C-alpha cells in the first residue's frame, strides 16, 4: 500500500540533507509528539507536555542552529543553495506531527533570515546571536513582532501601505535605538521568546521605504513585556500574546540590514513565511492521509472497507490529488527561492506574489478537503482520538494568518494585472 513517501516530489530539487534529517525528524515525531498530541490542547498555557518535544527537536537534535554559519556553531544552511528545499522537508515532517510545533520551530528562523541568508548575511549580528541558539541543548525561540492592534495584517500589505501605518517607533539616541510600541500575535511570544525581530518605523506615517526598520530586540532587555498567551482554536504549541516595547534600548547595529534594505529583504521573510505555510499544510495533510488510510480500511460499509464505496473513494481521490499538487507546488516554490539566478531575487515582487498565490491555494484546498474527509468519518471526524479534527483546526489557522486569503488575492492580482490602487 502506498505511503506518504509516495507523494510526488520533484526529485531533482531534493537537498543533500533531506533524506538523513527527514528520517531523524520523522522518528522524533513518531516518538516524541504523536503519542502525546491529543492532550496538547489542554497544555496551551503551561507547555508541560509540549516543552520536552521542543527541547529534543531544537536543542538536542540542534535544528535551531541550522541557519547560522558553520564557524559560529551553525550548519550553514543560510548560505547553501538548498535553504528552502531543506527547510520545506523539515517543516513538513514536523507539521505531520503537530503544526503548532512546526510554526514555533519555523518562526524561530524568521527573523534570522534577515541576517543569516546570502547575499545579505550580517556577520556581526550572526556573531552576536549565534551563541544564544548554538550553545544550548534547550529550545530557544525567536519571533517576528509585526502585527499591531490597528489594522492587523495591514503591515504586510506593503505595496500599498509602505509601512505608513506602523506605530512602533525606533528613535536613534546616540549609538542606540529606543523602541516603543505594542505588537500583537507574534508566534513564539507569550513568554517563550528570547529574541524579537521588530518591524518598526523611524518616522511614523512615512511612506519612505528607508524609514521602514527591522531591529533585533533580545527579550530580556528592560522594557520588553510579553503578555499572557491567547487561547485559540488550535496550535497549542504556538504561543501568541501581546508584546509591549517601552523605551527599549538596543545598539544601533541591531538594525538588520539598514535603510531601504530592511524593507527590501523583509519581503524575503514574507516569501519564506509563505513557503513555511505551504509546508505546514502539506505535512498535516500527509498525516491526514495516514489517518484516513487507517480509517477507511478498518471501517466497513455494506461489508466492505469504506474506501471501496465509489462515492467515498471520490472524496479520497480529491484529497490525495490535492496533496500531490500542494507538495509539488511547495517544492517548486522552494526551488524558486533556492535558485534566484533562474527565478529572480527571493524578495522580488514577483516571487512574493507567487508565494502568496501558492499559499492561499494550498490553504483553500486543504480547508475544503479536511472539511469533507471529516464529514466522511462521521462522528469519528470530531473525536479527538482520531487526530483528524486536530489538523482540521490547525490548517484553518494557517489559512488565516499573514493577512489571510484576501491579502494574498490582492497581492497576486496586483502583480499579474499591474493594478495601481488595490
Amino acid at each position, binding site marked *: 500500500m502506498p505511503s506518504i513517501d509516495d507523494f510526488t516530489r520533484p526529485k531533482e530539487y531534493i537537498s543533500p540533507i533531506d533524506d538523513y534529517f527527514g528520517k531523524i525528524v520523522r522518528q522524533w515525531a513518531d516518538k516524541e509528539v504523536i503519542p502525546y498530541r*491529543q492532550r496538547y*490542547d489542554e497544555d496551551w498555557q503551561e507547555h508541560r507536555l509540549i516543552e520536552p518535544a521542543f527541547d529534543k527537536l531544537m536543542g538536542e537534535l540542534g535544528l535551531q542552529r541550522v541557519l547560522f554559519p558553520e564557524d559560529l556553531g551553525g550548519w550553514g544552511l543560510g548560505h547553501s543553495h538548498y535553504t528552502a528545499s531543506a527547510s520545506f522537508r523539515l517543516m513538513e515532517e514536523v507539521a505531520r506531527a503537530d503544526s503548532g510545533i512546526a510554526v514555533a520551530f519555523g518562526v524561530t528562523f524568521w527573523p534570522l533570515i534577515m541576517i543569516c541568508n546570502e547575499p545579505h548575511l550580517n556577520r556581526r549580528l550572526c556573531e552576536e546571536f549565534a551563541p544564544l541558539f548554538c550553545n544550548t541543548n534547550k529550545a530557544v525561540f525567536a519571533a517576528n513582532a509585526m502585527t499591531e492592534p*490597528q*489594522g*492587523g*495584517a*495591514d503591515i504586510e*500589505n506593503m505595496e*500599498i*501601505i509602505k509601512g*505608513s*501605518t506602523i506605530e512602533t517607533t525606533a528613535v536613534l539616541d546616540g549609538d542606540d535605538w529606543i523602541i516603543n510600541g505594542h505588537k*500583537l*500575535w507574534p508566534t513564539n511570544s507569550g513568554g517563550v521568546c528570547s529574541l524579537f525581530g521588530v518591524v518598526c518605523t523611524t518616522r511614523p506615517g512615512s511612506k519612505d521605504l528607508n524609514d521602514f526598520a527591522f531591529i533585533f530586540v533580545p527579550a530580556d532587555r528592560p522594557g520588553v513585556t510579553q503578555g499572557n498567551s*491567547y*487561547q*485559540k*482554536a*488550535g496550535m497549542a504549541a504556538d504561543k*501568541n500574546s501581546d508584546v509591549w516595547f517601552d523605551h527599549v534600548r538596543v545598539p544601533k547595529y541591531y538594525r538588520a540590514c539598514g535603510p531601504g534594505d530592511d524593507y527590501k529583504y523583509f519581503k524575503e521573510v514574507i516569501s519564506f513565511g509563505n513557503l513555511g505555510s505551504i509546508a505546514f499544510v502539506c505535512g498535516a495533510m500527509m498525516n491526514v492521509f495516514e489517518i484516513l488510510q487507517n480509517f477507511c*480500511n*478498518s*471501517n*466497513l*460499509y*455494506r*461489508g466492505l472497507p*469504506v474506501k471501496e*464505496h465509489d*462515492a*467515498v473513494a*471520490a*472524496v479520497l481521490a480529491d484529497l490525495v490529488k490535492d496533496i500531490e499538487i500542494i507538495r509539488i507546488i511547495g517544492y517548486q516554490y522552494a526551488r524558486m527561492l533556492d535558485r534566484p539566478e533562474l527565478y529572480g531575487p527571493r524578495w522580488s515582487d514577483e516571487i512574493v506574489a507567487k508565494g502568496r498565490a501558492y499559499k492561499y491555494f494550498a490553504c483553500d484546498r486543504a*480547508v475544503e478537503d479536511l*472539511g469533507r474527509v*471529516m*464529514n*466522511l*468519518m*462521521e*462522528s*469519528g*471526524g*470530531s*473525536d*479527538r*482520538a482520531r487526530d483528524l*479534527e486536530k489538523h*482540521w*483546526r490547525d490548517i*484553518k*489557522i494557517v*489559512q*488565516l*494568518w499573514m493577512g*489571510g*486569503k*484576501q491579502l494574498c*488575492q*490582492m497581492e497576486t492580482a496586483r502583480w499579474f494585472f499591474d493594478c495601481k490602487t488595490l
Partner: protein
Amino acid sequence: MDSSKIFPFPLGSVDDSDFLLAQTLYRWAETELVSKRLEFREDYVKLLLPAMKKLFVDVELQKMTWPESCGGIGLNRREIAHTLVMALEQVGRADCGIGYLLAVTLTLCSSINFEYNRKEDLCQRIAPFFCQSDQPVIGSLVLPSYAMDNYPAVTTFFRGKALPAVARYDNDNLVINGQEMRPLNSGRDASFFGVLCSLEAEDGPVLILVPGDSPGLIRDEPFLKTGLAASNNADITLNDVIVPRENIIFSGEDCLSHMLSWFYLNISAVSMGSLFAVFEIIREWGDTRVIKGKGNLFKENPLTASVMAEIGHDIMLSRLLLYQLAAMFISPDSYSHIERENLYVPALSVVSHITQTAEKVMNQAMELMGSAGYATEWNLERYWRDLKTIQVHLGSWELNKMDLARYFYNSQKL
C-alpha cells in the same frame, strides 16, 4: 440588534406566542451565556449546566411537547414546527451545544408524545421525569454507524451500517445488549437513550427507550472532541439491560425516517441560530475594523464587503428554506407531491444544505477576521467547531446522498 430580524421568513402559522418565546430565549441567551462567555469560555459546570437548567427547567422547554394530561405544556402537534424552529434558532444562536441537546431531546420525545405517535403507556411513565424534575433531563439517541472490521457475529445491518444493539424478548420484557456504542450526545449524563436495535422477528430497526439508570448500562469516561462542550459525551455499553416491552418507541424504517425528519428540522433551526450569531460577529467586525489604513472601514472595502455580502446571502436563503421545510411539516397537503412519508427527503436535503452552507459561511467569516477568526475570545471559532461537530453527526453526505438518489432516480441497489 437581533440579527434574526434582518432575514425574512414567512409569517405563516407563526403567532404572537412564538415571538414571545423567541424574545424570552433571546434574553436568556444574553443573561446566561453572552455576558459570561469571556470569563467562563466553554466551562461545563460554571457556564453551560446553569444555563441549561434555566432553559430546560425554568423556561420549561423540557415540558413543552408533553401532553397537558401528563403535566406538560401540550405542544405535541405537528403544527408546532414553527414554534420549535423559532425557539431552536434562538438557542442555537446562544450555544450550539445546548441547542443540539435540546434538538435531540425534543426529537426523542416527539416520537413518544406527539399526538400521532402517542404511546400512552410510555407517555404516562416518562412524562413525569421531564415535567417534574428540577434538573435538566436530557435525551440522547444511538443510531447506526460504520461497522468495524472486527464486528461481532450477531451484528445486524441497516442500509449498510451496523445497528448498535441487539434486543430480544424475555416474557414481558426486552433484554438489550450493545458494546461501546457512541450516542449522539451526553453519554455521561443523558437520562434517556433511544437505542436503535435489531429485534427478533422484526425486519427493520426498532427504537427502544433505555432509561439512563438501567442496571447493566455502563457509561465510559468522557472523550475529547472538537466542539459541543454542552454535550458531555461518552460511549455506553448495555449488558443485558432489561426494559418493559412497552419501551419500544417504534419499529420499522418509515418511523425511523419520520423521526429523523424531525431531527433534521430541529438541527436546521439550531444551525440557523448559529448563523445569526456569526452574522452578528462579522457585522460588528465590518462596522469597526479598518483595512488599508485609517478611515477605511472593513464593510466599505469592495472585496471584504463582497465576502460579507455572500455571507448574508447564504444565511437569507438558508432561512427561507428552513421555514419552507417547517411549513411542509405543518401541512404536507399544501405542497405538491409531498406526503408525510416523504418529508424525509426534503428534510435531509435542507439540513444538509444548511449545515454545509454554515460551514462555508463560518469559514468565510473566519477568513475575513484573520487571527481574530481563530482566537477564542472572538467566539467565532467556537461556532465553527460546534457546527462542524453537529454536521458530522448527521452522517456522511456521500452516503446520505444514496437516500436522495433512491428518491430522485428510483435506484434500487445503492
